């Protein structure tokens, strides 16, 4: 399985080369080096896939062992990578989408002062992501998990000159820290109960876990996944993350990194299958996230915010799939989503690029004639995400909703309503941006927006084709369920299959199609000639349900209450966010530390004596029998 090493090795090589010589290679060259590295990695991934395909279905799990990493008593961790149907699917779409986005970035980041550095981070990111999806044990997955987190942090604040970019990076960092804790604790629990952290040993032995422990492990890992995959209530960071360059949003915050949580849950499906309560929780959180984010998306005016909320919503769908045991459907949606969401982002990027970094849809409009390729690819992406047959979203979302229906009708109802909203808000985006009256004159100061260079449109076209036809991967007819047949050995008995009656099998997809078309029509009726409708854009939704400011208030004000020692002038930075509040509390305690450290020896002695007295009190308590 040496070729697996190549899949991971090429991005690493690209990273190292760019790190060492990036500055010398210069503006377009560095981008090409990065792109080629990823493209080669994609080729290697294809070879891996073919090699696995040639094997019998039961023997498609291959492990590449490099060396022993940690060995401490019973605890050992090897640097081992795993090629199995699941990780190959992940590898293929990660490297494929990443290669296209690299190509696009060559055009997008042109003339940026730190052009080569951008590709250094991007290659490192792809490497980390591949480590994440191919690792054969939890600690190594965690390394990749941290690696993508760190790259995402750097890339969000890539334009750190903007203060908002820097603080957004910080927010992403801290919220992901909350999730990481879940990951580590989950790992420890797994090790405590199964005496191993290797997937090869843990997953087949998962059934030995006591039910309660399995629930706990599932919930802890879901905490990690919720942080990374931006589920309620931890999704606020993803919106701020849009401060990064658009290719970053496309690659990291739409196609790959944010889906890592879904991948992790799918990877741990044998444990999840034991945890019924946890699964139900995940399904509910998923569907609620999907709905809430879709509602919020209907009112945004920043084009990237719309897409970001849409991403959160789609991730909610994936978690719904995970929660209902429809792992294949979740992975299917993940793949198709990677295509159409990357496409939406890149198209938006193309628009933003031609409008000199303008992001408000209020100042766009009538761009379809000027940027035909961008417009058409965006429309394909819209129809895909809306679930209009026969575009890919129809099949992938349909299979999620089918299993949701099998689990509980209520989940299905919410899911369908969300689908309607999805078709609607994306339609709003398309009509307001590409049709209606031009409103961009102010921004462009006279000159007309023009189509992006070819290096940016080629990835758009490729992704558009993929988004349109990706449904072929898993058609809902017994012989044509390629992805299902490919993946089912991985999930085995964990995969839940619901039996639907013949009429349901016809009615459910029909409902999906009708709903999608309905959403398209409504959007057309409402937004064809309007760029603003106050009644349909309530502030509560524009502000993302006030979730962010709710955090501001609870944490920041809570902190303030603690410090109500006459200090009425609240530092303006406190109201900077939930993180600000917590950070402020820490700062306050830290300031207390500086007061304690008065420099007076006798005060120090007093503190020490205080410690001794407390200790002796404890002695008295323990000694008195």
């Amino acid at each position, binding site marked *: 399985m040496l070729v697996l090493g190549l899949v991971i090795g090429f991005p690493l090589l690209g990273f190292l080369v760019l790190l060492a010589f990036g500055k010398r290679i210069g503006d377009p060259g560095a981008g090409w080096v990065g792109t080629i590295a990823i493209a080669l990695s994609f080729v290697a991934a294809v070879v891996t896939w073919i090699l696995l395909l040639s094997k019998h279905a039961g023997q498609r799990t291959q492990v590449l062992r490099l*060396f*022993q*990493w*940690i*060995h*401490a*008593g019973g*605890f050992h961790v090897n640097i081992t990578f795993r090629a199995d149907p699941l990780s190959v699917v992940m590898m293929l779409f990660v490297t494929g989408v990443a290669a296209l986005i690299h190509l696009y970035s060559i055009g997008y980041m042109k003339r940026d002062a730190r052009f080569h550095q951008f590709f250094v981070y991007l290659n490192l990111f792809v490497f980390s992501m591949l480590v994440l999806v191919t690792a054969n044990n939890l*600690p190594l997955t965690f*390394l990749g998990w*941290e*690696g993508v987190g760190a790259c995402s942090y750097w890339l969000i604040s890539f334009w750190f*000159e903007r203060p908002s970019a820097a603080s957004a990076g910080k927010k992403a*960092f*801290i919220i992901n*820290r909350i999730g*990481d*804790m879940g990951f*580590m*604790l989950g790992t*420890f629990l797994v*090790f*405590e109960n199964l005496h191993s952290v290797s997937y090869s040993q843990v997953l087949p032995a998962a059934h030995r876990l006591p039910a309660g422990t399995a629930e706990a492990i599932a919930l802890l890992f879901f905490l990690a996944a919720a942080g990374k995959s931006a589920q309620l209530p931890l999704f606020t960071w993803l919106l701020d993350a849009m401060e990064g360059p658009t290719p970053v949003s496309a690659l990291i915050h739409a196609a790959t990194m944010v889906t890592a949580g879904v991948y992790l849950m799918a990877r741990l499906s044998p444990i999840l299958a034991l945890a019924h309560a946890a699964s139900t929780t995940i399904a509910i959180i998923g569907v609620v996230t999907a709905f809430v984010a879709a509602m919020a998306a209907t009112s945004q005016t920043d084009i990237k915010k719309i897409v970001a909320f849409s991403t959160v919503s789609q991730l909610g769908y994936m978690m719904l799939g995970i929660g209902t045991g429809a792992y294949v459907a979740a992975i299917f949606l993940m793949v198709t989503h990677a295509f159409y969401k990357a496409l939406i982002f890149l198209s938006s990027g193309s628009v933003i690029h031609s409008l000199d970094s303008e992001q408000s849809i209020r100042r766009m409009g009538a761009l379809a004639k000027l940027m035909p390729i961008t417009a058409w690819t965006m429309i394909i992406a819209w129809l895909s995400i809306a679930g209009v047959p026969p575009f890919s979203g129809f099949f992938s979302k349909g299979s999620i909703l089918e299993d949701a229906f099998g689990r509980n009708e209520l989940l299905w109802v919410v899911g369908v309503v969300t689908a309607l909203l999805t078709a609607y808000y994306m339609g709003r985006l398309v009509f307001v941006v590409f049709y209606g009256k031009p409103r961009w004159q102010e921004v462009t100061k006279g000159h007309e927006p023009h189509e992006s260079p070819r290096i940016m449109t080629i990835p758009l076209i490729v992704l558009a084709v993929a988004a349109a036809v990706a449904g072929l991967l898993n058609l809902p007819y017994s012989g044509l369920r390629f992805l299902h047949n490919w993946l089912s050995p991985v999930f085995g008995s964990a995969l839940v299959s619901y039996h639907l009656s013949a009429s349901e099998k016809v009615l459910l997809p029909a409902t999906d199609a009708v709903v999608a078309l309905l959403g398209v029509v409504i959007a057309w009726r409402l937004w064809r000639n309007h760029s603003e409708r106050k009644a349909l854009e309530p502030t509560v939704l524009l502000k993302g349900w006030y979730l962010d400011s709710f955090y501001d208030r609870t944490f920041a004000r809570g902190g303030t209450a603690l410090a109500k020692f006459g200090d009425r002038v609240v530092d303006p930075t406190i109201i900077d966010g939930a993180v600000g509040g917590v*950070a402020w509390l*820490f*700062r306050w*305690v*830290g*300031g207390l*530390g*500086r007061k*304690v*450290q008065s*420099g007076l*020896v006798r*005060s*120090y*002695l007093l*503190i*020490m004596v*205080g*410690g*001794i007295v407390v*200790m*002796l009190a*404890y*002695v*008295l308590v*323990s*000694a*008195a029998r």
Partner: protein
Amino acid sequence: MFGSLVSQLPIRLPSISYQAIGPELILFGAALVVLALSATVGRREHPQLYRGIGLFAAVAEGAWSANLLRLIDQHGPSLAIAGAISNDGFSAVVGIIVAAALVLTMLIGPGFVESVAGQGPEFVTLLLLSATGAIVMAQANDLIVVFLGLEILSIALYVMVGFRLRDGLSREAAFKYFILGGFSSAVFLYGVALVYGATGSTNLVKIAAFLSSHVLINNGVLLFGIALILVGFGFKVSAVPFHVWSPDVYQGAPTSVTGYMAAMAKIAAFAALLRVMMVAFHLQLEFWRPIVIALAVLSLVFGAVFALRQREIKRMLAYSSINHAGFILLGVLAATSGGVRDSLFYLGAYSVMVIGTFGLISLIQVDAGKVEGSLSLDDVRGLGRRRPAVAVLLAILILAQAGAPFTSGFIAKFSVITAVISVNEYWIAVVAMVTAAVAAAFYLRLVLALFSKDEAEVGVGDALYPVAVRGGSDQGLRLSTASLVPIWIGIWASVAITVFFGLFPTLLLDLVSRGKIFY
């Protein structure tokens, strides 16, 4: 009458295992050689000679310990010299860690210290003597020997902290360290006295034997003694609330001494703490574990939180070392052989990186022409442009301290947390991880400052300490090339070791897992 007869009998000296006390003899002997040479050759003519002897002694000590470890693996551990010291894997491994810390300091330290305080044999001598104390503490199988080792180490450190005697900050640091240290020594000693009263011995093995064969009806005095001993150790390792000295002393001491002190005091005190608790008081685990938990949790939390507000880098690192102490205490409170191993790993990893870190900070201070006592975040802003090598190396070491993957710091944190999980104290593991996350924030702040764009705001550090600086006369230090070469070797070695054991921790884990305590 019979009594007087007995005392007439000739005294039979116990057999002395020179092999077991080889490390002490090498270091102490080298110190005496340096002193003797300086009297004949001339004090300041041959600074390189003294450093060379010191370095040689440190390496020899490490080699001796390694050989000792090999022999112990073959022939088994034993007690030596009338049971006063324990010749076991644990002491040999600690001997190796001490040697590593000493070698790095021998490379980095003298160049800096002697450029401020004048050249001479004293610094090298004190380094060797203090390391002798550390080895004694690691081997000690008797509370009296622990105390003597502690005092040898501490008194040498008091003097080293005050080595830049012409600077007010250094003198003040020495004084504070001394007076608080003297107080805590007295408390520690009182604890020893009470344990002696309760068990009839100061010998760890004999205490354990007594406690396992007798049930004390009234165990107050024993517990009292254990608690006071913990206070003494808590002071040495700077665990909250006995940490109060460390920010001041870390800041005031010559920077490379700070690194050495952070490393060596922790190695020695934790080694002795582990042995005392594991050997003598293992049966009292239920009693002392909550105390250690309290110390650990407080150190973790306050070390991390107090550092957030610091702009003074050396003080920030002092708090970070308090946080580290909390982590190492996790291994102690586990009180299992795994916990011992993980603590040793942490100590080894931490010592190497902290000495390197402070070496780099010394370099930055020399560059900036700063008083050694102060270096604020603003002073290092944009260092990545001016001195990329220094900035990158410092960033690596700081990230290692934060526990970044692929550095030994990550494995260290990971393994102590595993140790505490293995005794089912999950909440402590959670606390530790949360504080690691909080700590990551201030480490990151330092790293970001190193690579940020805007230049330094001038003179913040100077403005803060007008009084203190008055006594000194630091008109920009200059380092000769002859000093710079070993300094860079030491720094690179520290970074290389940190990264190497991050990539291949198994080698170090194998070593420390041979460090079993004999009882």
